[in-house]
């Protein structure tokens, strides 16, 4: 456990030295503030469009941070050959993968807290309403989603040769699932034969990342999500993270580390 947290701490230190988060946060803040200053029929109480823009930017930024950070973890260690002294500590290959995952996941949590704090201040200043519990549900859901994505990207970094190809494929898969994942069974219902079966199988196999998107819920002030289904979805996400992480450990154990 100590080894895992030691590796996670290194990942965290690397994260705050890099400028990705700062640039994305400043961009998000700037765009949101500019949008907030737009005069719409002299009504300064209009807030939902601002929530929509800000949440969209937060989602894009957090996915960019998660995917780009996780994609370069293992390849960077291999390229700089620091992976050899690291594994000679002794740190097992499984501990290295889990440590990298935990580090990236904690970094994502910190980034999300900063982003949502900004979001809360901006929207609270306009509507004088602070649904803290709903925001907690949304942040935690997004964090669970990022956990699945991080595990998926770590697995990808051991399967694909280049960081760029891994990141691109992961972006496409994530956006694909977010847009279509929940509708595959409806598409399958209009298909026949093998294609219908394959589409249905994909529908039941893929992690349904769209569960974790509470943006419309927050924008339209629908109150709290029922805790029962919320907890089930959290469990569902943790299981998928564990599955991807397990596959990543398996792939890393069999991987030759020489370049």
């Amino acid at each position, binding site marked *: 456990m100590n080894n895992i947290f030691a590796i996670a701490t290194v990942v965290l230190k690397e994260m705050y030295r890099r400028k990705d988060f700062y640039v994305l946060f400043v961009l998000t803040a700037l765009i949101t503030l500019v949008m907030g200053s*737009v005069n*719409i*029929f*002299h*009504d300064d*109480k*209009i*807030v*939902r*469009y601002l929530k929509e823009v800000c949440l969209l930017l937060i989602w894009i930024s957090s996915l960019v941070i998660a995917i780009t950070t996780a994609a370069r973890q293992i390849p960077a260690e291999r390229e700089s050959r620091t992976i050899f002294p690291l594994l000679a500590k002794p740190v097992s290959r499984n501990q290295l993968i889990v440590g990298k995952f935990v580090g990236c996941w904690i970094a994502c949590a910190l980034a999300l807290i900063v982003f949502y704090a900004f979001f809360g201040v901006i929207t609270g200043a306009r509507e004088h309403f602070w649904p803290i519990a709903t925001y907690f549900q949304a942040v935690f*859901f997004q964090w669970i989603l990022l956990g699945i994505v991080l595990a998926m990207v770590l697995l990808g970094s051991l399967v694909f040769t280049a960081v760029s190809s891994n990141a691109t494929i992961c972006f496409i898969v994530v956006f694909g699932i977010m847009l279509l994942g*929940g*509708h595959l*069974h*409806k*598409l399958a219902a209009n298909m026949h034969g093998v294609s219908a079966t394959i589409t249905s199988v994909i*529908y*039941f196999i893929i992690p*349904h990342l*769209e*569960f*974790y*998107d*509470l943006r*419309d*819920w927050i*924008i*339209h002030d*629908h109150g709290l*999500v*029922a805790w029962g*289904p*919320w907890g*089930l*979805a959290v469990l*569902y996400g943790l299981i998928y993270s564990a599955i991807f992480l397990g596959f990543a450990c398996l792939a890393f154990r069999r991987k030759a580390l020489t370049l």
Partner: protein
Amino acid sequence: MPGISAEGTDVMSKLILALGFVSTFSLATWLQPRFAAMHGNQSENQSALAAMMGDSRRLFAQQFFVKADAYFHSGAYPGIFDAKSGDTNKAPDVDMADAAHGQGESDAELGHESSYLGRSDDWIEKLGRNFFPTIHTHLDKPGQAREILPWLKLSAELDPQKVNAYVTASYWLRHDPKHADEAEPFLREGLRANPDSYEILLELGKYYGENKKDPVRARNLFELAWAKWQQQKAAEKKPDELMGSEILGELVRNARQSGDTQRQLHYLELLKPLATDKDSVQKQIDALNAGAK
């Protein structure tokens, strides 16, 4: 350069420079008339955004208009995978715009799970429905509907020919006492871009009649709207008959307020062929004729 003297290199660089100047001058002469033509057509190209995006902006304008309708339904809105085959002829913008014309859907579904979702067949779908808005509500209380306005304004900015955006935004602005006066400049902006729009003239007439309590100005606007409607009918542009009857209905109401029975009868006669309930119009005509005798 190998094989070329220093003097030759000097001459060549001067020639390349001259070629550059000639090319840029030619490009400028080619571009100038196109820019002039573009700026000449003011109703089509009012903003840099329009010049930059070309006709693709109409697509985005429609998208933002639909977004406004989704906001009107508090996010419980069908996506492309949810629309049932039988409803495909129904434009997604109907509800919000219908409400603006007093033809909103029935309240039977309000407060319940939206019917477009259908029955959920598997546990993934059942679980997923807990995380997006499914309860059918409307933002139709005073002050609530303001949330749809940014998207309508953006839609109108991207496509100034989108008359529905002006009319719908104006309807909701007029019904908010604090912002009713914002409706007029927005409608005037729409009228500048669509000088033949009877819809905008009708809405402007309602603004003067209902909000400004100025029946004379309202009547002039309704009459102009009716004239525009007739012009389009004569030009076989198939104007909306429902809108035509709405304009005549406003003219009848205006004549009733001013106690002008002859004008009231005149517009009722015009309304009869367009009205969905012709018997009711005939009864009004009969009642007025009986009163006159």
